[in-house]
């Protein structure tokens, strides 16, 4: 067993690009779920807006990549209205149903042969991130170079997206933190606690919910952009239903209704996930048997890991629904 490799990979998982884009998406989801009590199960759809916003600039619109940022945000605002208008006046479940459905439809549309000219079909869109990479090279983080020391060794390519990613996380987190302390944020929390009370104070609950949905979605869009820039490509299957669910798990792990929770959660999530993945892969080099019952083959490691994610979410919900670092009093979207 190669422990140095396992440790190195786990630490890289802990602070790596996956943790970054999950953290940004989780901050957005936290605005909706943790602070306002909105059940957005389609965060992957918002992320796809950002990723395809970037990808389409070069692929379809033929303009500079940077225009993709406003275009992606524009997409996500549209999507927010599409999801919000029919559902935000109704029970919480309807939003969950519509968001999960919309995100799935977005994935089907962008991967379809019919709309291949716009979205590149199942292959997605590649090779649009050069302007972003060039800035990295210009300020001295050269793509091909190696940086750091064990256990933190990165190529310049990885390091540049990581630096940018964590800066975005910090800015977004601070922004949301301030917002939630503001009167506007307090209204959101009040909606989560008791919608009718807020309504009786003359606030338009619908409008606040819509603002929260769109703000959270726009932050999710940024997460999609970070991921797309890191990969240098956009692929429809990276925005499946499961991605939303894993982000939700990471968020709940860290603790809902706390900005710090939505950063720590994804870090722990990916730290543990990468560790388990590396560890089990080494264990399962030979199939593990108990009698003649095969417990684990190397091909099953991935699924076993995802099963553990599901189990974690179940156990969290049963024993600690506010998350590891959450505050029970803030977990009030159930009216308890």
């Amino acid at each position: 067993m190669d422990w140095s490799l396992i440790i190195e990979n786990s630490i890289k998982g802990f602070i790596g690009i996956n943790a970054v884009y999950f953290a940004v998406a989780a901050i957005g989801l936290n605005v909706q779920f943790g602070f306002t009590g909105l059940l957005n199960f389609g965060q992957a759809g918002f992320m796809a807006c950002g990723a395809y916003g970037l990808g389409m600039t070069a692929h379809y619109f033929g303009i500079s990549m940077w225009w993709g940022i406003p275009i992606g945000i524009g997409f996500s605002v549209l999507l927010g209205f599409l999801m919000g208008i029919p559902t935000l006046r109704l029970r919480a479940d309807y939003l969950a149903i519509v968001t999960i459905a919309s995100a799935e439809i977005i994935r089907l549309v962008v991967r379809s042969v019919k709309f291949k000219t716009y979205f590149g079909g199942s292959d997605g869109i590649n090779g649009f991130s050069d302007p972003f990479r060039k800035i990295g090279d210009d300020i001295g983080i050269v793509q091909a170079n190696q940086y750091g020391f064990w256990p933190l060794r990165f190529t310049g390519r990885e390091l540049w997206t990581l630096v940018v990613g964590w800066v975005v996380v910090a800015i977004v987190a601070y922004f949301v933190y301030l917002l939630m302390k503001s009167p506007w944020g307090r209204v959101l929390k009040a909606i989560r606690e008791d919608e009718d009370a807020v309504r009786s104070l003359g606030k338009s609950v619908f409008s606040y919910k819509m603002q929260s949905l769109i703000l959270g979605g726009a932050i999710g869009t940024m997460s999609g952009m970070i991921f797309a820039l890191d990969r240098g490509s956009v692929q429809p299957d990276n925005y499946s239903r499961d991605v939303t669910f894993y982000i939700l798990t990471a968020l709940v792990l860290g603790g809902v209704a706390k900005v710090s929770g939505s950063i720590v959660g994804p870090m722990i999530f990916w730290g543990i996930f990468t560790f388990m993945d590396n560890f089990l892969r080494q264990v399962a080099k030979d199939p593990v048997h108990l009698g003649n019952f095969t417990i684990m083959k190397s091909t099953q490691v991935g699924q076993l890991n995802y099963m553990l994610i599901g189990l974690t979410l179940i156990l969290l919900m049963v024993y600690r629904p506010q998350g590891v670092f959450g505050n029970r009093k803030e977990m009030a979207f159930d009216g308890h």
Partner: protein
Amino acid sequence: MLFLAIGAVLSFSLGSAHASDDGYSIRVQVRQQQRDEAGKTDNQPIPSVTVFVTGTDGVEIGRLVTDAAGIAIFELPHKGDYTVTIDESTLPDGQKLDAGTSSSQNLLSDSFVTKTKVVNFFTGGSQSVSQSLFERVTQRLVDGVRLGLILAMCSVGLSLIFGTTGLTNFAHGEMVTFGGLAAFVLNISGLSFLGFLSFIPGIRPDGTFHILWAAPIGIVLGGGFGWALNYAIFGRLRKRGVGLVTQMVLTVGLSILLRNFFLSRFEGRTRPYAEFTLQRAMEFGPISITARDLIVSILSLIILVSVALALRFTRLGKATRAVSDNPDLASATGIDSEKVIRLVWILGGALAAAGGIFRGLDEQVSFDMGGRLLFLLFASITLGGLGSAFGALMGGFVVGIMVEVASLVVPTELKATPALLVLILVLLLRPQGILGRAQRVG
């Protein structure tokens, strides 16, 4: 006891993955011919095209829809001569088979150099479609009714669970898959310790069951699975007063857990049941349907009608609807609502399992067969009215027909999109659904 039975089914799925690995198979690839800017071939896979394989006697061996990679794999009963045919009406709009490709290709026994024979279909430019509009519409309607029956069956449980407990169960799709796979385990992998039952017709010495046994047992196990979920998880949470949103997020975790468990045990391929794969399509005027599909449809209809009658006229059925309408009022009138909820989970699980098995007969089984239906199920129960069993029946039927008929207009790969449209329109115009009762929210 039921836990044991379910555990046995799940653990003995091991090795099932290789049950048919030594057999012969045909790999059909459907591609659109294209060239990139440099003039090199850059063929694109075409998903969602129906292809079927027939034996020398014209009997259909299997009918599949190509996956995202434009590929469909048929497991063959034995080496022999076969004909592979592509249903041209299911090609995306404006696509037609290349002039050099016939819609039927004959394979001779000798051409199986390896165990897998590859058959390619290429499409070229755009031309008109051969079938008449009337024929296409009626065929889609028939397909829609078949899908609608399955959706109706699966969504009754989802809607009743919502009605009686308020829970939106995101793991309901996995309950559908459970049924399909439980029957598959009994039918293909077999439970060898039950081999001693082989004196009963339909049970073989290696512990595999004929589908006519496997299907009802699968349905019973599905009911048991529903019971077990309620007993082990949701009943306890209700007793502790855990909130609905927490429970709903828990079902998400359950869905991830179960789906990946199925994937790890059954792998990603889709596979057929052992029986009723050899079917010759019968022609009724413009409609062609295999005897299997006809029987499955009639059976689903019988199950649905009996469920509806039971809900309408039996004591327990009335109690169920009472709890679903207003749990507090129902408790006040002396109805044991926990008992009703238990019944609803069992019924919901059994119906979902039946839906899964019938879907499996229709389109083969895979680890995410139910997960892919989930969104259509939500559309069905929203359309019918959340919490209403009759609404779910009707909603499932309407959504099924609509999705299939829509594929005349939209590309087949996007045929689920109209369901989202309906979902949004219903919520905008009549959020309580067709049969739901309006209540003031906000």
